[in-house]
Every structure is written in C-alpha cells, then in structure tokens.
C-alpha cells in the first residue's frame, strides 16, 4: 500500500496529537512529562515514512503540548521527537538491506536495539538539554523519558509495525537515503563504528545517571560525554 507524503504526515500528526493529548492527565513530572503511550509512534513512523513521519512527530508533539506543558522547553520536545523517529530510520538502513519488518528473529533484535538507542538518545537529549538551556537538572526526567520511550515503542510500536507490514496492510516503507556528512562530504566508511561509539557513549551516560545517580552539576565531565554524543548524533542523522 502506497500513501502520499501529505497523508503520511497527517495520519502521523493526528495520531500523535490525539494520543499525546489524551494522556496529559497522567503526569509524572509536572510541566515536563507524563505516561506517554504516544512514544510508540515515532520509531514506527520513522521506519515507515522517514523524514516525513519524523517531522509529523515533532510538530505533533508541539500541538499535543498545547493541552498541557507548553513552554519554551517544548522546542526541545519537537527536536527530541523528530530524532526519536528519524534515528530509527537511519539506523535500520545502516544495519539492514531489507525494508523494515520483524518477520525474522534477527529483525526483531534489530528493532529492539534501535528502540534502545533511540530511548537513550531522547532521554539524554531532553534531560541534558533542560540543564544546558534552562539550568534545570531533574534526574527523574531522564529515567521516565527513557522508560516511556523504550517500553511503549516495544509494547505498542512492535505490534503496530507487524500490522503495517502484514500482508493485509503491506505498507510501502520509505527507501534508504545516503549519509551526507560521513558519506558524500567526508567520504569515509565509518558509519557502523561511529554508531557503535555513539551507543557506548549513551550507555555510559545511562549508567552514570541511572545507576550512579550522577548529574552534570557535580560531574562536569558529563558535559564532555554529552558534547561527543551530540557530534555522534549529528553524524547519524545527516
């Protein structure tokens, strides 16, 4: 089944706004985050529709914020949700030559790995972003955002992808696009090593924040890790 770009955008946008707004009452950190089953949408929208789905997720999140939690920090939410959708698309095509599907165990594992990297990324981006731009460090945000993203993208995102790629629906996923930064500009074949280093950085930040209870106020070297992670993320996205 082929869907026009406009329809791809509006379907994703509508689903994101409706689901995002419905759960605004289940607040976890007042003004910042809540229980978000809507986080099931970005990985699937990204895998299916590429950048169109990612933009729809970003703007959809901003629109859902109008029902609660709207503020300057919503800008970070727009970028985080764009990344939550676009990064899975880039990573899938980096590691697999197939169109996105979870018919084999290998593909299920790849989907789970992508969800993990995406959850790490969004949690890091939002919590460190709030600290860098607004001077707010709330460790709970990192934890809640991480589990919201990982949990829902596996619990609901995986079945959603199964339905979309089933014989009955058989959606035509967006094809791969080349890497501009690492590919065309620098011409180096380091995409997979860069991704591995990025995953390592994300894991270290997760261990430091979640298990060791560290924060960038006291451990300033976390800023260095954060800056390296940002460079890694830009390499993946572009």
């Amino acid at each position, binding site marked *: 089944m082929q869907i026009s770009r406009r329809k791809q955008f509006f379907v994703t946008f509508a689903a994101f706004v409706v689901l995002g707004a419905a759960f*605004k009452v289940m607040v976890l950190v007042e003004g910042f985050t809540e*229980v978000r089953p809507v986080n099931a949408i970005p990985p699937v929208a990204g895998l299916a529709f590429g950048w169109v789905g990612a933009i729809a997720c970003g703007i959809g999140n901003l629109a859902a914020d109008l029902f609660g939690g709207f503020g300057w920090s919503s800008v970070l939410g727009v970028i985080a949700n764009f990344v939550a959708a676009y990064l899975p698309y880039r990573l899938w095509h980096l590691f697999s030559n197939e169109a996105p599907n979870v018919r084999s165990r290998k593909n299920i594992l790849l989907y789970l790995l992508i969800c993990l990297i995406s959850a790490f990324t969004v949690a890091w981006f939002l919590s460190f972003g709030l600290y860098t731009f607004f001077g707010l460090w709330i460790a709970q945000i990192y934890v809640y955002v991480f589990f919201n993203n990982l949990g829902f993208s596996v*619990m609901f995102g995986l079945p959603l992808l199964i339905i979309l790629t089933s014989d*009955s629906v058989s959606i035509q996923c967006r094809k791969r696009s080349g890497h501009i930064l690492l590919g065309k500009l620098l011409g180096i074949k380091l995409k997979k090593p860069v991704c591995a280093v990025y995953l390592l950085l994300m894991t270290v930040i997760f261990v430091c924040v979640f298990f060791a209870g560290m924060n960038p106020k006291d451990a300033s070297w976390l800023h260095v890790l954060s800056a390296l992670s940002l460079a890694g993320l830009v390499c993946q996205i572009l």
Partner: protein
Amino acid sequence: MTKTENNILLFSITLCWASSYVFIKSLPPDFSSFAYLTLTTGIAAVILVAVFWRRLRDIKVSTLKRSFVLSLILTANLLAEKRGVMLLPASNASFLAALTILVVPLLMLLLRKKPTKNNMAGAGIIILGLFLTNRFSMSAFVNTGTLYVMLGCFCSAIYILSADRFTKQENPLLIGVTQMIFTALFGFVLWLFENPATFFSVNYTRELLSSIFILAFFTKAYAYILLMFSQKYADPMRVTIIASTEPVVTLTLAVLIPAAYGTSESFNIFSLFGALIIAIGAVVAGSGFMSSRKKAERTELHAD
C-alpha cells in the same frame, strides 16, 4: 504473519486488557455501566470506521449476522466485567479473569474437543497460583464482584470460541469493525432505558474523558482489531493461554500507574510468586510435553 509475530500481537492485546482494570477503577463509582459501554465502544467504532471506511463496502449479510452474535456476547462480557471490577481490587479481578483458561477447555469438551493433559495440569497450577496470591485466603473473593467477573470470564470464553470460528469464515477486519458498532448500539439502547438523558447526564471532567478515550482506543479499537487478526492465525487455546498471563501484567501496572489515578495496590512476595505460578501454569497448559507425539499430532489435526 509468522507465529512469533502472532504471539507478539496476542501479548500486546493482553497488555491492553490488563491495563484496562486500572482505568476502569479510575472511573467515578456512580458512572453507569451502560454509559461506559456506549462511550468506549462508540468512540472505538468511530475510530475504526474513520480508519477503515473504504473497506466497509465489502460487508456482507453473513458478516453482519456473525458480528451481531459476537457483539451480544461482548456486551454481556464487558458489562459483567465492569461491574465486577468496580467491586474488586484490580489485581483480584484480573486473577479471576484468568480463569477463562479453565472455561475454554471445558466448553471445548462440550463441543466434543478433548483438552490435553497439559491443559488440565496447567489449569491446576493456575488455580494454585491464584490461591497463593491471596495467601490461601479466599475472603477477598467473597464478594458479589467475584460472581460478575466469573460471568464475564464465561462470556469471554464463549467469545473466544465463537470468534475463532467466525474469523476463519469472514474478513476479520470487517467482523471487528461491525461488532464494535453493534456493541455501541446495544449499550446505547440499554443506557436509554436506564436514563433517557444519556449523554447529557454525564459530568464530563478532563480525567473522565481521558480514561474513556484511553479505554476506547487501547482496550477496544486496538485490542479487538488485533484479536480478530490474531484469531485468524491462532487456535483458541493459544489465545487463552497468552491471555491468562494477564494477572502478571495487571499486578505490575497496578503498582506502577501513578497514585493520581486512585489505585494503590501492594506488591508483596505472595502476589509475585502467585503471578509467576500462573505464568508457569499458562506455559504448561500451552505446551504438549505430557502427551505422546502421535497423540499430540492427532489432537492438532482434530483441532484443525
């Protein structure tokens, strides 16, 4: 669809149903059961029609007849379940609902389909898990709510067996959409008899609308369409076995869902072991290691 994909879908449905107990309990105590039925299935029907309206042209009279029967069973099931859940703690209601795993093989017996030794053993283990969860005290279940949940459980078993048959004869998508429309209509008629003001009698708070929408989207629209798809490829015992892991999920959710939703259930070592035993029972009931290979193959053929 592969078997693994199908199992993932069934687990996802179980998760939705398990979470529904927590949201049903967050509804106001005086909220009519018929209003609940009309609003949740009505919103689900609107969502499904909006998404699949192009496919509705393929509806046949036979589809309508079968979905009418399914929606009658579903109406009874949802009303009994809602009434029961309001009278019992969410985790107790979920544990009782898991007894569908006992009712399905019994009904299969009536239909002259013999349950396997594993089904019987698994059922026994699940009962043990149920007792352990409540520290072998049934006082928490001596409640009218138990009767309602058991009635819901019985309806659910009939529903699974009927859906198994109908989804193999009809388009599962159309069955799913039309049954939701019929269920909403039944709910509305009953609500009209109870309170002619119907929609105007409800005090629509933000929390209520949110709960209703969540229930409509996840436990009705999403879960029932997925169930219809899954039942086309799975046998009723597999559906029931995966659904019987529901208490494990409910228990976890009842603890994790914010206290703002009014649910504060304790997670102790007994409930943990009870949930584990129920999960083991479900696995035993679903596997075939107690039957000889020939016998298992024969049973499988008979089931086909």
